[in-house]
């Protein structure tokens, strides 16, 4: 039985995770680890081929050369999203080498990684530290994984690598284009994904780095988003992914009138709050509502002849159109969601590739996320104290990763445009099932039934005093939702076993997820 301690948010969290002691969440900005940053062992260039050719026969050979052993940590990135072919082949090769008890440390996993379940069952993989959804999410939620999952934000993953909480033994970096030296880029090639920022920490801090590509070019690969000077070996595969599942040809905006209404009110809120003025900045992802928010904001910016200094992506064709139309000076892009985004990143110097280091890292000397004036994010649940959940469904099952979500909460104005309920599932609740983001950092909830401003943001309440938008107390909207849905929802029945720890951006444990009953 896991020993639980109460953290500063009143949540009971494990004091120990997979045999290592863990620090309970202490509050925002309270935890400051000391000491020196982690580092890989010293290497010498004379140990590497002078002609720069690091290509080896296959993944299995590369893993054997890397001296893969039981219990090691292997990392991958998720820029290939649900089209990734590399992680599955990687663990097939590890299984062939007969190793056991590996820790998989992806920046995120996707439903295409369901085959990893057989390696978890066979003991090749001990547990996963990274977001899980689909079949892996169910496998973990039902308590079938041997170790405890650890879910971190993109910034928290960088933090864990930098402060030594996670030591990567072998990083396997899928690269849409690379040269024999290991320089790599995501902005071109048949499996082009835009950028490789999620693999940056892995390239710099892993003990051993393997680049895997299906588009080998002669040295130099320009640009080099991943520097070959960090790379030990290069493997060439026929295909590293399914292009149709890596990026979409075109990004669809939502047709739902309710979501459009929410997005429209969110854009109007930004105007009424005085945020939309020359030189401002915003971040909106590629989810349906966030995307249409950007489009409504674009129209309002055109009307008022306002230009942004920068937009933070996930980029899509719509953000690219704004850049090309001159509505923003720059896109600072963390991941690219469609082909237009990939093209723009390749061709437009003002479409800049960024990483969790620049944008989110807790151990950086500042980061971009807190400089963004307004960020628009999703959530599965929000409670009356503005605390939000982004990882579990209301039935307690793991549904989404944290992504950059926690890091983005540090923006100067954090807005969650969310439906107040989905079908008969209330999104506004008394208490979130899993705490991912403390209410102090969540400023505004925009629902189809009204907008709630966090009482802590007296400045925003004051700004919106004369707005025609439907500003209402959050408890009032929640009460209306319960009236519609037929009372407050029952709490899911969960077991005692902790299946996943939820980390805060500083490495402390903010909450945990318990086992749900098997269907």
């Amino acid at each position, binding site marked *: 039985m896991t020993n639980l301690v109460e953290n500063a948010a009143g949540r009971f969290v494990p004091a120990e995770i997979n045999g290592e002691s863990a620090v309970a969440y202490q509050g925002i900005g309270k935890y400051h680890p000391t000491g020196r940053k982690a580092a890989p062992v010293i290497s010498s260039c004379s140990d590497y081929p002078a002609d720069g050719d690091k290509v080896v026969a296959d993944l299995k050979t590369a893993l054997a050369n890397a001296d893969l052993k039981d219990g090691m940590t292997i990392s991958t990135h998720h820029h290939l999203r649900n089209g990734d072919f590399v992680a599955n082949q990687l663990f097939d090769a590890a299984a062939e080498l007969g190793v056991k008890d590996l820790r998989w440390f992806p920046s995120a996993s996707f439903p295409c990684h369901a085959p990893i379940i057989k390696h978890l069952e066979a003991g090749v993989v001990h547990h996963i530290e990274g977001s899980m959804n689909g079949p892996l999410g169910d496998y973990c939620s039902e308590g079938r994984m041997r170790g405890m999952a650890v879910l971190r934000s993109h910034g928290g993953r960088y933090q864990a690598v930098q402060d030594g909480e996670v030591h990567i033994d072998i990083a396997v970096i899928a690269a849409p284009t690379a040269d024999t030296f290991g320089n790599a880029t995501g902005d071109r090639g048949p499996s082009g994904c835009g950028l490789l920022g999620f693999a940056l920490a892995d390239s710099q801090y892993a003990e051993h780095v393997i680049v895997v590509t299906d588009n080998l070019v002669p040295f130099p690969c320009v640009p080099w988003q991943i520097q070959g000077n960090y790379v030990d070996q290069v493997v060439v595969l026929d295909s590293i992914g399914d292009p149709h599942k890596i990026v979409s040809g075109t990004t669809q905006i939502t047709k739902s009138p*309710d979501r459009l209404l929410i997005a429209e009110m969110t854009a109007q809120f930004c105007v009424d709050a005085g945020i939309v003025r020359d030189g401002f900045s915003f971040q909106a992802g590629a989810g349906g509502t966030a995307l249409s928010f950007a489009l409504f904001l674009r129209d309002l910016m055109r009307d008022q002849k306002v230009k942004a200094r920068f937009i933070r992506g996930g980029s899509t064709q719509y953000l690219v159109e704004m850049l090309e139309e001159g509505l923003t000076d720059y896109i600072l892009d963390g991941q690219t969601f469609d082909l237009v985004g990939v093209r723009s990143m390749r061709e437009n110097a003002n479409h800049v590739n960024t990483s969790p280091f620049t944008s989110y890292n807790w151990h950086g000397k500042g980061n971009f996320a807190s400089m963004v004036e307004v960020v628009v994010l999703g959530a599965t649940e929000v409670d009356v104290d503005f605390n939000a959940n982004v990882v579990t469904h209301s039935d307690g099952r793991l549904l989404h990763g944290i992504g950059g979500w926690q890091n983005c909460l540090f923006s100067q104005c954090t807005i969650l445009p969310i439906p107040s309920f989905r*079908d008969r*599932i209330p999104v506004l609740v008394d208490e979130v099932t899993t705490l991912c983001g403390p209410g102090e950092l969540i400023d505004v909830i925009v629902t*189809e039934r009204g907008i709630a401003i966090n009482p802590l943001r007296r400045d925003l309440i004051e700004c919106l005093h004369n707005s025609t938008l439907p500003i209402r107390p959050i408890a009032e909207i929640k009460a209306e939702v319960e009236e519609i*849905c037929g009372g407050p929802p029952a709490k899911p029945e969960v077991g005692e076993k902790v299946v996943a720890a939820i980390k805060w951006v500083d490495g402390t444990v903010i909450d945990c997820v318990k086992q749900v009953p098997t269907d």
Partner: protein
Amino acid sequence: MPSRGEAGRRGDLVRSDCWIEVELKDSGGVTLEVQSKVGVLYGDEIESLVTAGLIQMGVENATVSVVDQGALPFALAARLEAAVRRADPAREVPYLLPMSERCVYGSDPERQRRSRLYLPGNEPKFFINAGLHKPDGVILDLEDSVAPREKDAARVMVRNALRAVDFVGAERMVRINQGESGMKDLEWIVPQNVHVILIPKVEHPRQVDKVQNRIEDIQRELGLKNTIFLMPIIESAKGAWRALEIAAAADTVVALAIGLEDYTADIGAERTLAGRESFWARSQVINGARAAGVQPIDTVFSDVTDMEGLRASVLEAKSLGFVGKGCIHPRQIAVVHEAFAPTEAEIGRAKRIVLAFEKADREGLGVVSLGSKMIDPPVVKRALNTVAAALAAGKLPSDWREAEEADSGTPEGSL
């Protein structure tokens, strides 16, 4: 006498609805099986709602299966009642949930009817947020959007929606079926605070009389006194010929609408975007309505992706004299309201006339004049309407008089 009935929809794509099967039995009590997408959150609520419903409908022995995709209580209750009635058509006991206070508000014969949003009567998922898009009216449709074999289920669903769903101040309308089916519809909806009944395919004032009489009969029987307004819809050449008689058929008629899909088919013409083929009929409806002192209302615009086309269509309708347009998608509503709203030039002119009128009134003058021109009473009336519409559309602040007077000293100037 085991007998079976089922109602509703199932499948992964179904949202906010459910499928319920009821098998009535002679003995053995009630066996209930519930499979729900929201079982973890509301499984117990669903069971108690079904159990209470069976008791209310007097069902003591039955096997009931529920496959739920997140239906709200009003929709679950409607599906249960429809399934029980299908299993035993002789059983006429309703399963009524309490009427929500949010459904108890009135209407006004003169209120604005710029937009009316059609909602298919058997699709509860479209009802829930319809009012949030701020249409002037919502139409729960029992006619063309409901398949013939689902008419019974749609009546239960629409009745329950009228008792449960908050349409946020929108006028509560129902489009009934033609003929006897429509008379049956009235029994279900007349007692549920419906504001306006739309009568389809009206060709003769007798059809309006018949509906009016049936409403009065039902109301008399139940002791209800609220006035229910009527909006006949002209959808044929015969109807267009009798537009005035139809609009004047009953005191309760507040508006006369035209439906062009059926009308163009009836006269054997293609419906075009330019609409030359329907110009006469639309003018008949406008003039018939105005002659009878009711609002002329235009047809729907069917291309939900073409917002510019919609805007042009509303501006054209407005120029002909229509004051309302049908909507089949919530995103059309704001466009319709904006296009019907008076223009800045119209508002500016109307403000000056209203101020001149008020000044003449204060000074006891019989004649209103602006600069060197005399203003006729109908012009004053239209200016008052324009100012009211501008206020309603949010295009004029409520304190516009002070601003205007501060701006220009005395309200003079050329037209």
